């Protein structure tokens, strides 16, 4: 009984925050769809699902996300192996670098990809611009890091001996991989793949920017239905489909996520020297690095060009407001505001994430308790799978009246960003906390330590490093967050991603160059944070 109360007490704050800032706004928007004129009319919502266009949209979402997931896994596996099992030079730096796309704002990535693939770009001859190939490629670009981190973390702690036993029994390296390594990695691969699928299926900017409007996914369709057609019934129908699908995926991922057995120490295999037989994964990793670097390089090059000459003018311009005063504040102020917002989002997601991680990672007594923890775990992952438009509009219509008059609060943007970062924080901390042997806490308690003291003695030494890493990760994610931020009401001050969006949206080559320079600054800031975080060596970081 006391355990249940403690559990509820710890969960209360995050649950309340999520209820106010997520459940309430989203259900507010759904209600507008189901009660169009104050009358409950579910038939109209269901009717939407019979539209041929909706079928096309659903089908495109499923196959593009599925294909992008497959590509991410195929590209990610060799890199996961090379970067986590082999003693490659600079492998930590490479790991950090590969995580940068994941936290870059979609605006920046969209521009970078179009610079590269556009008809006049260096890869324009491929004719990929505006094709599903470009969409799938960009989605994989964003998400391959998730596969590398998740699978790499379990590959790193994979006992090499079953593989050696198989080799000694006559299995060739390929057979060892197929019959021993792959089955052992399957839970982490499927778990990572389901999360990647989730990210791909709900991605918004990439499909709009790179699809040339020829393709619509569920997420872009919700955006169009809400912001343009104001067809809230159709938007509600698609949101429901999205929520159901996301919940199903989270259940699958949760089932497969390996619960680390705390009685077994996590053994991290020492990376071994590169042998000639490793050529294939190493070459694949280098190629992946090149593919990931290309769009970024095209950004950097673009930011240094003015007409036909090289220049730093675009960077100098960042101290000002752009040509024709495209911005109300200098871009440097936008960076400062971004940093301040990210600080707030970071502490919020850390406080909430730590509470959630503690709640979901403690050993359960009995089925009901375990199930309750599972439900809570999934609940806090839900923000990953809901359209930012729905959330942004939901804020407007549900948080306008006392006692929840929050829609104009300066903290709304950090709160929204914290919700985006929350699942990542939880997924970084929960495995670490779960790996602490409960008997350690019991030992501390038997020596006279209260629960708090026991946590300080037992959990803190294990968790402070992941906590710091999660903070850095949340910081970087919030720095690059664009979707939710752009839909929230703001005063005249802009975060850097939104400022970049505005700069691109104004005519004049100078503003465009300045937007590229700002993107490079943003990417560099993110990369520095990720590098610092990578030095903390937390394997669960960025893994699902």
């Amino acid at each position, binding site marked *: 009984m006391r355990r249940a109360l403690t559990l509820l007490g710890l969960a209360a704050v995050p649950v309340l925050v999520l209820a106010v800032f997520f459940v309430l706004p989203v259900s507010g928007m759904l209600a507008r769809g189901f009660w169009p004129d104050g009358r409950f009319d579910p038939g109209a919502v269901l009717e939407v699902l019979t539209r041929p266009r909706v079928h096309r949209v659903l089908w495109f979402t499923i196959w593009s996300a599925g294909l992008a997931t497959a590509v991410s896994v195929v590209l990610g596996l060799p890199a996961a192996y090379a970067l986590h099992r082999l003693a490659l030079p600079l492998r930590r730096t490479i790991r950090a670098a590969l995580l940068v796309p994941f936290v870059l704002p979609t605006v920046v990535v969209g521009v970078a990809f179009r610079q590269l693939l556009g008809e006049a770009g260096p890869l324009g001859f491929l004719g990929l611009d505006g094709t599903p190939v470009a969409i799938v490629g960009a989605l994989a670009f964003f998400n391959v890091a998730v596969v590398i981190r998740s699978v790499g973390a379990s590959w790193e702690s994979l006992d090499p001996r079953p593989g050696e036993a198989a080799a000694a029994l006559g299995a060739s390296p390929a057979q060892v991989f197929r019959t021993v390594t792959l089955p052992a990695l399957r839970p982490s691969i499927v778990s990572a793949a389901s999360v990647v699928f989730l990210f791909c299926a709900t991605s918004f900017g990439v499909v709009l920017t790179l699809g*040339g409007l020829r393709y619509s996914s569920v997420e872009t369709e919700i955006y169009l239905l809400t912001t343009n057609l104001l067809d809230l019934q159709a938007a509600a129908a698609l949101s429901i489909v999205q929520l159901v699908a996301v919940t199903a995926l989270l259940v699958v991922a949760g089932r497969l996520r390996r619960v680390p057995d705390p009685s077994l120490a996590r053994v991290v295999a020492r990376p071994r020297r590169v042998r000639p037989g490793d050529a294939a994964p190493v070459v694949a990793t280098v190629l992946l690095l090149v593919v990931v670097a290309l769009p970024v390089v095209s950004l950097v090059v673009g930011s240094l060009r003015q007409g036909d000459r090289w220049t730093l003018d675009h960077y100098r311009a960042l101290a000002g407001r752009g040509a024709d005063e495209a911005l109300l504040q200098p871009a440097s102020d936008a960076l400062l505001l971004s940093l301040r917002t990210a600080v707030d989002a970071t502490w919020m997601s850390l406080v909430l994430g730590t509470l959630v991680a503690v709640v979901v990672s403690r050993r359960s007594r009995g089925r009901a308790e375990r199930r309750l923890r599972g439900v809570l775990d999934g609940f806090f992952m839900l923000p990953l799978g809901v359209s930012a438009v729905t959330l942004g509009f939901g804020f407007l219509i549900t948080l306008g009246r006392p006692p929840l008059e929050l829609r104009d609060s300066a*903290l709304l943007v950090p709160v929204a960003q914290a919700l985006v970062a929350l699942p990542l924080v939880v997924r970084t901390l929960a495995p670490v906390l779960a790996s602490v042997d409960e008997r350690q806490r019991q030992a501390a308690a038997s020596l006279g330590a209260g629960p708090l003291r026991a946590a300080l003695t037992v959990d803190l030494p294990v968790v402070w490093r992941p906590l710091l890493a999660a903070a850095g990760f949340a910081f970087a994610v919030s720095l690059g967050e664009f979707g939710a931020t752009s839909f929230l009401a703001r005063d005249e001050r802009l975060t850097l991603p939104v400022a970049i969006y505005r700069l691109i949206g104004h005519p004049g080559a100078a503003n465009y160059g300045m937007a590229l320079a700002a993107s490079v600054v943003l990417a560099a800031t993110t990369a520095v944070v990720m590098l610092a975080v990578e030095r903390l060596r937390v394997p669960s970081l960025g893994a699902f």
Partner: protein
Amino acid sequence: MRRTHASITVLGLALAATTAGCSLGGGGDDEGAGKAEQVVLVTHESFALPDEVVAQFEEESGYDLVLRASGDAGALTNKLVLTKDDPTGDAAFGVDNTFASRALDEGVFDTAEAELPAGADRFALDGDGADRLVPVDNANVCINVDTTWFAEQGVEPPATLEDLTRKQYADQLVLPGAATSSPGLAFLLTTVAAFGDDWPSYWRDLVANGAKLTEGWSDAYQVDFTQGGGGGDRPIVLSYDSSPAFTIADDGTTTTAALLDTCFTQVEYAGVLAGAENPEGARELVQFLTGPEVQAALPTSMYVFPVSSEVELPAEWAEFAVQPDDPWSVDPAEISANRDAWLREWSDVTSR
């Protein structure tokens, strides 16, 4: 190991420092300085005014001007509709003539009681909307061509809508989509005005001739247009009549031109929100937006023409931004009745 420690310390210190000094809570936002003394303007992402102009309004009216800017014109209108019982501000700017009817039909705006500057009458709405939505600026959405490119190729640039479907201009046009961008929607309305019920077949021809669709204006102009910042390779783009004023070469002439037979006029309005906390402040603000200071600042701040004929245009604008005499137009009531159907049909014609 030592290096790891050092970097952890640095990271920790950086975090501590930023948390202490840089949180939004720590910044000096004196929003609690009395609600009645501020006036809140709800607007779209592209809104911009020089600091001096804002300062002048605050000084003259005694109100603090607070901005709530997000999304584009469509998102702005829909937000206003969704929050009409509980508006997020006192005044709104940025609802345009393609969305005006929806906002008016939903009763979003109260009467503004504003006096229009000289020359603004021609942009005013008919009927009930006239005293609620006040025209502030206008711009014409026109097909632009890269004149230097066509000169180099020795080809005559296109001039009319029909030209765009001709083989000789195949794969040369790039334009933002109607469903995702407001100039895109304006161009759809252009074709509706020009071709009537046959507009879908025109679009089919356009797409068949290799027209490229992008999400927004910036993608089309900056990335794909030959004179955009990204140096694309399509010499025909959908943009504004003012755009040639921004592509002035070193020799002082512009490298692009707007095709004046392909234009559709977009007018942006301001209005007082029904249920505003500070309706007086809102009315003062709307009046100020049509006043000489704002009107004069519009071209450089927001790249649009003032509705007032009294203010002087910047030199480049006067020289290179040529406005059409007789742009295409569609009755706002007809837009209101058909916009959604048109957009759906447009999406079906253009997407696969």
